């Protein structure tokens, strides 16, 4: 199974009253294959997050198509696309992304609960032990720090067992020890569970976990050379 972005771009209008628009993502093509870790680096505002949203089915491109095998993602209706994302695509957003009215455990099991899938509670507990938040299973999000909430989002995405895992600054709030744990876990997801992992990050340490390095600058993608 491959994810192929075919000449996709995304423009936004700066001023809705005029035709003054800009390319957040310039026309580009990209292929993601399972079993690989792709690290995407770039400055703030270079279009990394927008590209991630385009690839993960969250934002329709202005031009071009995104194929998951032979399926054009954005030709599906909302119900089909939502189900596909739940089954095949995991996303770890940069911002806080938990439901405040659910406990930590309920947040992690949310993707499975939405479609009535069996809950992998044991696997969840193992990951929570790995990331040292097992004692917070019954806690509410308001009781957790930013770093702890990020680890919750990471575990939620991993236990979804997606084919494609997109992580936007997954180590942003974490200390060195947990940063290493997260990056190791993402690499294990790629190499052992055969996921295609795309990590957007500023962390130079992430480079050593990458099978492929890419750079984004002013909406344009290129391989990173150093």
């Amino acid at each position, binding site marked *: 199974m491959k994810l192929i972005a075919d000449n996709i771009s995304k423009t936004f209008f700066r001023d809705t009253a005029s035709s003054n628009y800009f390319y957040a993502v310039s026309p580009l093509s990209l292929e993601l294959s399972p079993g690989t870790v792709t690290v995407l680096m770039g400055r703030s505002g270079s279009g990394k*997050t*927008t590209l991630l*949203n385009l690839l993960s089915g*969250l*934002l329709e491109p202005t031009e071009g198509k995104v194929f998951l095998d032979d399926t054009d993602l954005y030709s599906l209706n*909302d*119900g089909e696309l*939502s*189900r596909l*994302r*739940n*089954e095949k695509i995991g*996303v770890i*957003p*940069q*911002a*806080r*992304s*938990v*439901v*405040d*009215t*659910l406990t930590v455990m*309920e947040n992690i099991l*949310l*993707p499975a*609960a*939405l*479609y*009535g899938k069996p809950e992998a509670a044991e696997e969840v507990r193992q990951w929570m032990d790995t990331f040292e938040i097992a004692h917070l299973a019954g806690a*509410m999000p308001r009781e957790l720090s930013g770093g702890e909430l990020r680890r919750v989002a990471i575990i*939620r995405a991993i236990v*979804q067992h997606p084919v494609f895992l997109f992580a936007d600054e997954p180590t942003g709030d974490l200390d060195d020890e947990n940063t290493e744990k997260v990056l190791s876990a993402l690499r294990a997801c790629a190499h052992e569970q055969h996921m295609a992992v795309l990590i957007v990050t500023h962390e130079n340490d992430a480079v050593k976990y990458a099978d492929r390095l890419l750079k984004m600058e002013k909406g344009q993608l290129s391989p990173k050379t150093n």
Partner: protein
Amino acid sequence: MKMLPLSVKNLTRKPGRTAALTLLTAFLALSVFGGSVVVLSLRAGLQSLEARLGADIILVPSEAQSKVSFQNMFLQGTTGAFYMDSSVQEKAMEVPGVEKVAPQTFLASLKADCCSIKIQVIGIDPARDFTVQPWIARSLTGELGDMDVAVGCKVEAEIGEIIRIYEQRCKVVARLEATGTGLDTAVYCNMNTMNTLLAAAEAKGISHKIASGDDSVISAVYVKVKDGVDIDRVNSALTGHLRKVTAVRTRSMITGVSDSLAGISRTVTVMIVVIWVLALIILLLVYLMIVRERAREFAVLRLVGASRSMLSRMALLESALCGLTGGIAGVALAAIGIFSFSALIESSLGLPYLTPAFSTMLALAAGAVLLSAAVSALASAFAARRLSRVNPGTALREGN
């Protein structure tokens, strides 16, 4: 996906927000149920009054304070005692068009030992009476004997109990069904008993003798007009034929009450409409404000694969649950208030007031609850649509 557990968790874990929405819908249900019960009770009271009056015309002495006072005996149970010669009955029968007549005699007690206020005693001729007797017959098998009394439902005296009126021992043989009128506070006896009580009152210095000094007195004559005969014509004929007697058309009493009822009904309806419009506007505004507060939450749900229809369903379910809970609470509060204070409501309105049957109340309650739930869901529909269309990429951007 079972949205119900998620909706319930969202509601129970945000108690402040849920309480505010529930309170609003409780107010809606309370106003509809409470207002409807009051209006229906007034209508039932009016129908009961019509049935109790029975006669087409009531003859009373001209000295009777005023028609309004006489009317208040039926509406509010205020006591009254006025007398005329008993020959009025025979003279009334002489008027063409009169089918039958029945006398009643009124006496106000000083106070019976059952009550710390005056009560109305009404003497009837059980053989001839066609207004009160049919109602008494529903609660009493057999005749109303000498020194036996039947009490209205608002007189707290048990069957078999002896009550004293002007020191005379009277035995309670029946408690009558509610009519919602002033007749519920009266005590009924036959003419022999009434004559004994009149004599006892005389001994206490309360004179019932009319100017002629005649001992044989009555207070009112109920007249039934023959079918097909013009009641107004008979009314005029009676007025002309009888001296010092006023003929009261019962229709005019009922029309007066009916007009008051229509006025109250209109007022209650307007109040309910105003409350609903205001509450609906507030609900709409609150749900729109909630959109901003919950955009991130819905974005997370979209992120993990919830479809728009799932999210719409969840939002609508939450608002319907709020509405249902609020509806039940509102109806319960209204019911507690109305039934606990029904006597106060009745006396404040000054109109016949008879609570509808239990099945009617249950239907009203169910209707009010369902209406609240439906309106709550409707008010949230726009907000639900907006929330289901939230873009996770935009909503979850850092700093949002």
